[in-house]
């Protein structure tokens, strides 16, 4: 019976922590005779505010776009509905963008969810696995073999992420890094974002639709020739050399494998 009482204690404690409407659990007291509610509030506040802070750290631009008060109220609802399920908080809030997208009070900022997606890609890129870039000589050697070049597959850095947005997501994000002018942004103009980590820094690029398609295809193990054809179909002005120069310059190609190896 004693065991059962103990089981009830942590269950009711946990549930009351996440729901401010609930009374504090039974069986608690304060040595000085104070109302346990005022003491229980410390734990409730620790849980709530530490998790809201974790979201604020991961989504600084979303917080700036809506203001601190709105952000914390929105995050509090998310925390209550989706508390973390791991003690590793680096991934906490990975689906916050979906929550924002379905959060009616934020509907007046239709780009907000995609800005959150971009910020999540940045966090993921920051903590992604390490991988060494392929040496430029090796790439040059592969380029000099036109017979096999088209069948080559490129492995890309684990930090790489792509986002296709109907909103100017990179421009919106950049104005909050002190780059660009809010007034100059055309809110009707969609953008493709490329996120990757290079020399310990996470970088964000706005890329053309063709480049995005090319990198997306490579990322999904398509050979170079197929990736280039897909990109040309998406954007007749696509230039493979420019896209490759970007990937090589950022150390993003981590392995070259001939078709037969895959």
């Amino acid at each position, binding site marked *: 019976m004693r065991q059962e009482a103990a089981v009830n204690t942590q269950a009711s404690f946990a549930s009351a922590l*996440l729901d401010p409407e609930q009374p504090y659990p039974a069986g608690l007291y304060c040595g*000085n005779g*104070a109302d346990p509610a005022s003491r229980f509030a410390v734990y409730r506040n*620790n849980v709530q505010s530490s998790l809201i802070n974790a979201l604020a750290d991961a989504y600084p631009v979303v917080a700036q776009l809506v203001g601190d008060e709105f952000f914390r109220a929105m995050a509090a609802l998310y925390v209550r509905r989706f*508390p973390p399920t791991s*003690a*590793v908080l680096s991934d906490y809030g990975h689906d916050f963008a979906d929550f924002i997208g379905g959060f009616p009070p934020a509907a007046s900022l239709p780009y907000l969810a995609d800005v959150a997606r971009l910020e999540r890609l940045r966090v993921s890129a920051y903590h*992604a696995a*390490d991988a060494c870039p392929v040496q430029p000589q090796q790439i040059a050697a592969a380029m000099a073999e036109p017979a096999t070049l088209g069948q080559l597959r490129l492995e890309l850095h684990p930090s790489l992420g792509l986002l296709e947005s109907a909103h100017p997501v990179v421009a919106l994000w950049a104005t909050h890094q002190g780059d660009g002018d809010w007034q100059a942004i055309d809110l009707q103009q969609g953008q493709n974002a490329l996120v990757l980590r290079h020399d310990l820094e996470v970088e964000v690029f706005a890329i053309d639709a063709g480049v995005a398609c090319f990198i997306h295809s490579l990322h999904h193990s398509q050979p170079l020739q197929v990736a280039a054809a897909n990109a040309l179909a998406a954007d007749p002005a696509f230039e493979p050399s420019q896209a490759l120069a970007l990937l090589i310059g950022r150390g993003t190609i981590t392995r070259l494998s001939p078709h037969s190896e895959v």
Partner: protein
Amino acid sequence: MMNMAVPLPLHPATQAPLSSLPQRAGLGLKTEHFRQVLREQPDIGFFEVHAENYMVAGGPFHHYLGLIREQYPLSLHGVGLSIGAEGPLDQQHLKRLAVLIERYQPQSFSEHLAWSSHGPVFLNDLLPLAYDRPTLNRVCEHIDQVQNTLRRPMLLENPATYLEFRQSSMDEAEFIREVIDRTGCGLLLDVNNVYVSCINHRRDPLAYIDALPLHAVGEIHLAGFAEDTDSLGDRLLIDDHGAPIDNAVWALYLRLLERIGPTATLIERDNQVPAFSVLHAEVRQADELLQCARRLP
């Protein structure tokens, strides 16, 4: 009074020392200070990190910790194992800890006398336990599991608490003494937690310290607290690691050193992190007190 020369006891099962940190002051390593530490190589006894922050695949955290570990002793401090939880320990989490320990070979591993998970939900706070027999058995089983899996002893940190449980049948110091007797783990004595809890529960901090198994102290923590009031208007201290160390905590620390001799001491600041130089000054202050403790009879 115990002399400085008394070595820490060995963990009975593994015959490993409870901690091999130097008898110096150390500092909680903050990511915003990575580059400065590497550039300036400050004279600091050791660094401590929260294990969970480094449970990521790669990137700057591992890059910088690896470089800093080459030059300083390291204490790995867990905040998410939920040793006091009613449910079983998270085996995945335990595996992640084993991987980190293998990678960084820390001089000490510690966790809390608290719970932080219930079922699948992680609450991200160190929550209080009822001090009764079922809890004692459960905590001891969990610590045995940790020490067997990691094949090394751990240090257990005394909590800062704001509430007590009617079902408790022993006091906190007695509970900790039994855990340490039964599992052979060491004690991470957080002096700020002692002060915060004793003020909150109207107890004498020094009497509490004297009731602890001081022979097993492998590390000391010092931090700052926030101050509030409860429903009676009484002082309610909150362990927020967001302020300088209070004078009352420094005073208590000195009394502790008089009892146990110089012991590895961590300065913790996790919120409103100030400039590195501010934290370094607190490290130096602790080092000076450790110097004094070396001269004690």
